[in-house]
């Protein structure tokens, strides 16, 4: 890529200190608070207020027409959901599998697509293309593909003598199959982030390593991997958050089935909403929020610290 954006400017510490001194008076005028205002109004009313309201409503029995305060009953009820324990395990599995695969495949594809490979332009486009298709469309297509007897995948396997499994109908496989499709759809974005991370590694590093006699593996191990770390942490955080909250694709493909075997927390919540148990559904949302925060915030801190150390 030759159309690289501006490179990192000098961020001298002395300059930072000087800036801090000048800050008090002038910065307020140059960087006025009201720049926050329009965004804050929209974000506050349509995101923060509902989020706080949900803390209250999660303590009520709420038909959309009226709400009755019932204390923590919704939370006890929610934790008694037959699908919920499984849903938690599934949520973790799904998030870990999808973000793990996206990191590995994204990195490999990133390296491949920054090398001097033939048909690079075509490959870059085709890998990114699934990102553009609607989740529902992808879900319907792959549900058809994964049909155990008529689906393309098992027909292809049968042609080479393998008896393909019931990808979406075997309770122990369904979640994993959906996760694979999620990776298929999302790996393009991870790849782009990696491509960006890899092309921004200054050429000097490669040359220095080559002069030291590093082979391709050492080059990968000692240059590409550590220097694309910011890309790795971006991919991990984005796909982990996506994976923990994931819902669209699971819903389009299995609706949490067969039975409850591919239910995740988000789909349990949605089912409660669908059934009209608004209080219960909101309580589930609060639980999901706490869980995601408990995982993502420490992880983000950890990744950021690692980044600084390098």
């Amino acid at each position, binding site marked *: 890529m030759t159309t690289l954006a501006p490179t990192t400017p000098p961020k001298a510490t002395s300059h930072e200190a000087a800036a801090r001194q000048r800050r008090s008076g002038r910065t307020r005028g140059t960087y006025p608070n009201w720049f926050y205002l329009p965004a804050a109004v929209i974000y506050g009313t349509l995101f923060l207020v509902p989020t706080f309201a949900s803390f209250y409503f999660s303590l009520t*029995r709420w*038909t*959309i*027409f009226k709400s*009755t305060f019932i204390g923590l009953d919704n939370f006890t*009820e929610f934790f*008694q959901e*037959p*699908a919920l324990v499984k849903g938690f395990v599934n949520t973790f599995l799904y998030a870990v599998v999808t973000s793990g695969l996206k990191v590995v495949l994204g990195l490999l594809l990133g390296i491949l697509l920054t090398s001097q490979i033939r048909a690079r332009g075509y490959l870059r486009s085709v890998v990114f293309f699934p990102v553009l298709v609607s989740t529902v469309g992808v879900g319907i297509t792959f*549900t058809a593909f994964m*049909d*155990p*007897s008529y689906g393309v995948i098992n027909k292809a396997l049968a042609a080479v003598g393998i008896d393909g499994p*019931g990808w*979406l*109908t*075997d*309770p122990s496989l369904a979640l994993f199959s959906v996760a694979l499709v999620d990776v298929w759809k999302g790996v393009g974005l991870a790849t782009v982030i990696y491509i960006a991370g890899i092309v921004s590694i200054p050429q000097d590093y490669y040359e220095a390593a080559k002069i030291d006699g590093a082979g391709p593996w050492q080059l990968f191990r000692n240059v590409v991997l550590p220097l694309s770390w910011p890309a790795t942490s971006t991919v991990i955080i984005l796909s982990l958050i996506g994976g923990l909250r994931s819902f669209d694709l699971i819903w389009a493909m299995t*609706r*949490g*089935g*067969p*039975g*409850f*075997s591919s239910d995740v927390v988000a789909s349990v919540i949605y*089912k409660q*909403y*669908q*059934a*009209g*148990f608004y209080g*219960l559904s909101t309580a589930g949302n609060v639980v999901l929020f706490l869980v995601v925060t408990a995982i993502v915030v420490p992880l983000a801190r950890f990744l950021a610290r690692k980044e600084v150390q390098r």
Partner: protein
Amino acid sequence: MRSRTLAKRRAAVAAAAALPLLLSACSAGSLGSSSGDGSATTIKLMVDNAPDNLQAAKQLAKDFQAQNPKIRVSVETRPGGADGDNLIKTRLQTGSMADVFSYNTGSLFQQIDPTKNLAPITKDPYVNKLDKSFLPQVTVGGQTYGVPFGPALGGGVLYNKKVYARLGLTVPTTWAQFIDNSKKIKAAGVAPVIQTYQDTWTSQLLVLGDFHNVSAAEPDFAKKYTANQAKFATDTNAVKGFEHLEQIHDLKLQNADYASATLAKGLQMLATGKGAQYPMLSTVIGAIKTSNPDQLNDIGFFALPGDDASANGLTAWFPNAFYVPKSTAGDKLTAVKKFLSFAASPAGCTSQAKASTPTGPYLVKGCALPPDVPTITKDVASYFTNDAQSPALEFLSPVKGPSLEQICVQVGSGITGARSGAAQYDKDVKKQAQQLGLSGW
């Protein structure tokens, strides 16, 4: 320099962004055929997007407009199933409901809080024309709120008559006979009982369709069930539906691809004789007509048999109804009432039957089925004429759990047993009962 050209380009982009806004002001919503003339009252009718219902609604609107040139009816659609339920609730709550809409009768009808959200039509003359079995389904606290849209349906078994004839089988009147038949069908290399768990809802028929047998054995079950005194897991009659589901899986009477098959595939199997029996609602006639028009009359219908041959009868589903939200007023309300009166008349039935194949009898006095209806419809209707039918549980009790379909898939796939499935369902309905604020829960 650079920033100036950028600024120019930005202005152009902003103008381009504003353009569709202006366009939309005149075009969105006014596209299409519904061009109104000044003096007419336009009423909006909302129905679900099932092709049969939509076509019937459009035909009704058309024939009604022919009789009432001053009124225009514009038909809009909503998704079916649970998404549709939520849409209805939010639109009622926000006062943004169409002037008249179709929705379920029975337990789901209770959930939209009729007394608060709907306009009663109790005193209107056309209410007298409704079948007496239908009235309780749209009546709360002495007030009636709706007229039927579409015919009644039966929940039972669709069967391939050719396969039955070839193997010399007769329609079973007990569950034991049904299993016997199924074993013979299996021996002949045909899938005896079609199950299609990709479309989860289709899994419930063996449980829900068995309810006539439950009421026959235990007439007050529904009442005790609503009062939290009877449970599926502990009532020997009620648990049978779950046991049947388990049995057909244990005896391997299902089609091999039951886990991944869809309703469409199931109907094709049935029509082409690859499968012989399909526990289903008679409402799928329209779908068979599209996919296998030539084989439609090879398919017949019988009620799910129970233990007692003498009590054999049909579990009946009532049609949806047209309701009027409280937000409809003035000229529109007058127009809507005229429309309801038309829908609940023999002319209305004829109009609906013209556009979509009836799946059972119409529940309006004076309505007769056209003579050329498919075999399934005739079979369903004969249970009504012989008075060998009773309503499904959801029309007798507001308590219906949301997860029955998943639980049925689990039992039918051998993931859980019949008893524990029934127990899971008992837990599932508890939330519903509490949400409705019923006493005893």
